[in-house]
């Protein structure tokens, strides 16, 4: 097992190297003078311009710049924001848990509902329920994330005032940051109503972000379930006289989960991309909103770091899924 993980890690090295090249190239590929583009409206005199060129190392040959960049990365130095003058890594550390929290809750929601709906639809194949779920899944899969968010805000936040429009928690709560995850921190704070407020803030963004994943999981679970239920071992299990619930859940669902797991891994990409849109709509203070705000502020070091971090997160999650896959299905380990 350890050998399998090591082999996968080594296989990732060229990709990681490539990602650093992309992030490195981001600033250098901008047509024209990168400093002038970055500064935009903020005019610089010649001295300040030269100073900034020097500070960013743009006067060095490209390979020296790249090496410098990689060495700094290895030390955890992601550069400095042009706007706030804070180290990018510090800003990142403050925002990352918000995105992780949102994505995790969205994924859990998608898995819980997607698995239940998909399994039931598979068991009741051809029924009205099945057709309804599959129809909804197709709609959910085709839904423009940002519009879905706006519609939910329109009905639940503006129309019914059930949920707040933006942010992570109501402004009257001053939650001390312990883990960075608002759900946990608000519980730990012991303030009355803080946790409920955090939940209300999280509900719509998580639902919006989880919708397309939920649709994909439901579709995949249904088809995988249909496939598995035809297998001989299911008939054997039934013939042995096991209870229907046991047959469906232990013998059926467990085996049906393998392809679902792969799909969930592939969905991380759309979760990350969806997070950019969802966070923008709900003003959720996470990595996605940070990235988009930085682009409009022309804060290129932050954009560079944001892209790098997103790619690394994506790669890490896929690695995790690969490893999990190896755990669930031992045959995979020897094949790769």
């Amino acid at each position, binding site marked *: 097992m350890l050998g399998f993980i090591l082999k996968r890690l080594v296989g990732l090295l*060229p*990709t990681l190297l*490539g*990602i650093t*090249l*992309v992030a490195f190239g*981001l600033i250098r*590929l*901008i*047509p024209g003078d990168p400093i002038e583009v970055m500064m935009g409206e903020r005019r610089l005199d010649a001295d300040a311009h030269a100073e900034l060129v020097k500070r960013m190392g743009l006067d060095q040959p490209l390979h020296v710049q790249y090496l410098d960049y990689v060495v700094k990365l290895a030390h955890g130095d992601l550069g400095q924001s042009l706007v706030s003058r804070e180290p990018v890594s510090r800003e990142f550390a403050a925002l990352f848990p918000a995105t992780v929290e949102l994505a995790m809750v969205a994924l859990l929601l998608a898995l819980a509902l997607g698995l239940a709906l998909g399994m039931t639809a598979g068991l009741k194949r051809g029924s009205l329920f099945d057709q309804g779920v599959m129809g909804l899944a*197709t*709609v959910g*899969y*085709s*839904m*423009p*994330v*940002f*519009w*879905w968010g*706006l*519609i939910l*805000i*329109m009905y639940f936040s*503006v129309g019914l005032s059930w949920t707040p429009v933006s942010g992570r928690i109501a402004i009257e709560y001053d939650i001390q940051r312990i883990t960075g995850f608002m759900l946990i921190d608000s519980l730990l704070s012991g303030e009355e109503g803080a946790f409920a407020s955090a939940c209300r803030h999280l509900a719509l963004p998580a639902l919006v972000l989880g919708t397309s994943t939920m649709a994909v999981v439901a*579709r995949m679970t249904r*088809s995988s379930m*249909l*496939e598995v239920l035809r297998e001989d071992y299911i008939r054997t299990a039934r013939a042995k006289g096991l209870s229907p619930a046991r047959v469906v859940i232990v013998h059926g669902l467990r085996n049906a989960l393998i392809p679902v797991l792969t799909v969930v891994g592939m969905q*991380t*990409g*759309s979760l*990350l*991309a969806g997070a*950019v*849109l969802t966070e*923008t*709509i709900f003003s959720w203070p996470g990595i996605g909103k940070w*990235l*988009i705000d930085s*682009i*409009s502020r022309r804060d*290129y070091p932050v*954009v560079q770091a944001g*892209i790098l971090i*997103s*790619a690394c997160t*994506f*790669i890490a999650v896929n690695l995790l899924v690969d490893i999990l896959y190896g755990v669930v299905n031992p045959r995979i380990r020897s094949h790769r």
Partner: protein
Amino acid sequence: MSVHQPPAADASTALPYPSPLAEFWQGFAANRGALAALIVFASIALASILAPLLAPYDPTQQFRDALLTPPCWSAEGSTRFLLGTDELGRDMLSRLLHGGRVSLGIGLASVLMSMLPGVLLGLLAAFFQRSLSPAIMRVMDIMLALPGLLLAICVITVLGPGLVNTVIAIAIGALPGYTRLTRAAALAEINKEYVIASRVAGASTARLMFSTVLPNCMAPLIVNATLAFSSAILETAGLGFLGLGVQAPTPEWGTMLSAARDYIQRASWVVTLPGLTILVTVLAVNLMGDGLRDALDPKLKKLS
């Protein structure tokens, strides 16, 4: 067939098999949803193409006396603007029709721009497994390390927002999919007997690539192109919504939504209509993709 039949009998009636096209159509039409989707999509496409004729007004013309007029079915609406007007008094119907040209155009252009080089790279990777494949596939792995929309954002950061750059950004994001798919499909074909026979008969590599192997790899590619088309529409709208795509005043569905955000409390139709248009279009394309998959690749059918 009986042996007594004269050999000159009409071959098309004698053969029990329908022509490939007829067979394809049968498979596609068997899927009711796909057929309905085709009709819906064809109407949307036709309406977009004919937008200059159908649209009652110029999409950028501002009626200062009629800002945020509700659609004709609401109490305050008027038949002057069937779907109402936006915050600058522009006719929604005209903007949606013209927006279709932009959104569908970008989708089509980006599919072509990613499919052609993607397929070529995939074929090269399959035919030159020793020399070219490792390099090509490594680059594709790197491109796949960034989810589509983020890669597009990356490209926009460098190139700047705009219509053409949106096409380029989305095309770059979709390219690795085609390369991987083509390579996998071509690798499955390349050692089959008909390819070897063709090679032995002296066919050049280019001929083998494009006229022997490629036609047999088309089924998954067509299905992928359909799905890529729908996600291109979604991504175009997403970029437009983030302010990184097509810039105002060009009517584009996502850009329209972006501007509409501030009027969510007062004018629900400026939010609802563009999004509904995107949803219906994408849904139609996805359903068509399902039908295409059923018709072209029966092996995949059981997956749905």
